């Protein structure tokens, strides 16, 4: 398993190497990618509104469906299941199809699954807005929508699994391990959440353990693998080089899927559960660093190359690894006492979800969509603006929330400081986070325009040709 995927010369100006996977699977893949971008914009608007509420609590407070708690839950759900889910599947299915060398089989299952997935997600958001959310982080989905999401995910996974089973060579690449893990394991996580939290809920505080496991599993065996699947495929393609230290990639993979599931309890430090729940999580969070180091060693070549895809993936890699180390440091009890329950925790989530996963997915999508559409992106200026706004916005959000969190943590630990004083202390930094959220949203709007323009050019050409 020392081979990376066979590198082919990358001509930066598409229509480079458009394969039968792209031409035959264009409609379902574009449906997934288009839904992903729509959800990214929806969650961006919701996140911007909720970050304004942190500065001006009165903002939109008159409507129950826009109250702060519901807005944050809506933004998170749209982001995770809408953006990461759709974008991750676009990349994973496209990549598995390419490595099988044949058009995606069962494309109608993908079309039907994607339609039901996005429709039931819309129902889920309406449900949360009118008060049927569960208030469990990463699992706010109203109970009734989960069976539909489960089945539609299974339908969407079918073409991916068929492409993997029918792969041209026995040897599997790292990108395939990660993609297959995400395809097979997500339904398990969703089912555990459905039964152990909603249908036949476990008793009292044990629900917090299940919730912690759910959020962590969603990260370690679904969102992170989807992003890594794209990065492990695109980086060697673009650089034209074998990945360095590729022998250790298998170690990084198994450490993530085995050890990752133990780390969920680190948010329960000092909580009402037995100390072993937190202690196991702290130890394994450090063990998980092996995974982050391996990914860093493998993908570091992304920092050497040019091109839009590598820029996004390179920064995503940096954020992903930094997030892993931040998790480890803040899981130590002496540090957690100052960062737990503060905006620092929110900053870490943003670093991981927006910095790590989203940037890697954006990079892979820049590469994949140019091939799926069979033409280069229509505006290089919009790409540059998207990149600049993303870097600025991400830095503003993560740094401002982290500083706000450190101040909040110091204040919370001093019993003399009132909550009004804490709010005054953190407000300037929360304003910075609002600016960051606005920049991210604007950048993504420009990206959506660029995609729309490119797709329109493709449609015009096809009509003209026929």
């Amino acid at each position, binding site marked *: 398993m020392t081979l990376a995927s066979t590198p082919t010369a990358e001509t930066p100006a598409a229509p480079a190497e458009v394969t039968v996977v792209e031409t035959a699977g264009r409609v379902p893949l574009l449906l997934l990618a288009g839904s992903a971008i729509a959800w990214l914009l929806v969650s961006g608007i919701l996140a911007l509104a909720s970050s304004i*509420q942190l500065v001006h609590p009165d903002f939109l*407070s008159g409507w129950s469906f826009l109250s702060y708690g519901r807005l*944050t839950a809506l933004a998170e759900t749209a982001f995770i299941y809408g953006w990461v889910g759709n974008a991750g599947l676009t990349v994973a299915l496209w990549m598995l199809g390419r490595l099988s060398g044949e058009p995606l089989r069962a494309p109608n299952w993908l079309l039907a699954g994607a339609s039901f997935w996005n429709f039931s997600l819309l129902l889920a958001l309406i449900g949360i807005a009118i008060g049927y959310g569960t*208030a469990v982080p990463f699992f706010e989905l109203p109970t009734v929508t989960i069976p539909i999401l489960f089945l539609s995910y299974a339908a969407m996974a079918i073409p991916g699994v068929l492409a993997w089973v029918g792969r041209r060579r026995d040897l599997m690449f790292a990108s395939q391990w990660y993609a297959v893990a995400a395809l097979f394991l997500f339904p398990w996580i969703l089912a555990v959440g459905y039964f152990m939290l909603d249908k036949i809920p476990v008793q*009292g505080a044990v629900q917090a353990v299940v919730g912690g496991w759910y959020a962590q599993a969603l990260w370690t065996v679904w969102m992170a693998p989807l992003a890594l699947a794209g990065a492990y495929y695109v980086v060697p393609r673009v650089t034209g080089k074998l990945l360095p230290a590729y022998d250790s990639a298998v170690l990084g993979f198994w450490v993530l*899927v085995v050890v990752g599931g133990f780390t969920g309890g680190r948010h329960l430090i*000092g*909580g009402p559960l037995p100390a072993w729940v937190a202690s196991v999580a702290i130890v394994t969070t450090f063990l998980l660093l092996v995974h982050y180091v391996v990914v860093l060693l493998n993908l570091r070549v992304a920092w050497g190359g040019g091109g839009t895809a590598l820029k996004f993936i390179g920064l995503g890699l940096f954020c992903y690894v930094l997030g892993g180390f931040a998790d480890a440091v803040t899981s130590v009890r002496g540090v957690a006492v100052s960062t737990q329950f503060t905006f620092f925790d929110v900053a870490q989530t943003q670093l991981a979800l927006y910095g790590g996963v989203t940037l890697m997915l954006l990079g892979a999508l820049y590469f994949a969509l140019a091939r799926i559409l069979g033409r280069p992106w229509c505006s290089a200026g919009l790409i540059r603006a998207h990149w600049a706004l993303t870097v600025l916005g991400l830095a503003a959000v993560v740094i401002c929330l982290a500083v706000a969190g450190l101040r909040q943590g110091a204040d*919370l630990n001093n019993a003399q400081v009132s909550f009004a004083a804490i709010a005054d202390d953190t407000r300037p930094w929360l304003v910075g986070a609002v600016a960051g959220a606005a920049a991210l949203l604007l950048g993504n709007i420009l990206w959506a325009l660029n995609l729309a323009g490119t797709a329109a050019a493709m449609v015009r050409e096809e009509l003209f040709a026929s």
Partner: protein
Amino acid sequence: MKNGLMLFLGLLAAMLIPWSAIVLGANHELGRQPAYYDDNDSQAYPLRPSGIAAEGEQVYRGLNCAACHTQQVRRDGYGSDVARGWGDRQSVARDYIFRANPELGALRIGPDLANLAGRKPTAPDIDDLYTLLYEGQGAMPPYRFLFQYRKIIGQRSDDALQLVGRYEPRPGYEVVPTRAAQRLAGYLLSLNSTYTYPEARAAAPAAGEGRK
């Protein structure tokens, strides 16, 4: 890796191991905790929540109040939870056995509510809660959609809020809580963890002991 079946089975095992260890392990240890019967009080603790408190828990959940409020007091000396008067002891798993959906929370933009109704020296009463929810305070937004602003027909309602200053209704009008506000307040006023279980005592050597 060459063998697809091995990858598939490996993935299932990789999922099964942490899930059984952490989730099933915790459930095995704590999933069937009984209430603690105190012979001196002739009473079992925690108390079962009243009907309105159980309904209010769903209002709390639906509004996602846990986005800003935790419900877990950490032990004295770890953070300022006890010093802030949020409780006299750390929260333990037994506090939550009668909660349909415990909301431990992960962010403290507002204060902890685990022992809201048992705070010393003064716990808020229902009028305080209604006023706070209607007016908001500091970083807490107002929740005016939980109230009804209406013309007084006949006699002023007994439930009408005693608002003064900026939020005082016009003469002839009153502000009354909706059913959702009554449930939410009923729930918040049921949050009381003053009783100290054997496992919640701060004695260092016996920490974790005392489960029956």
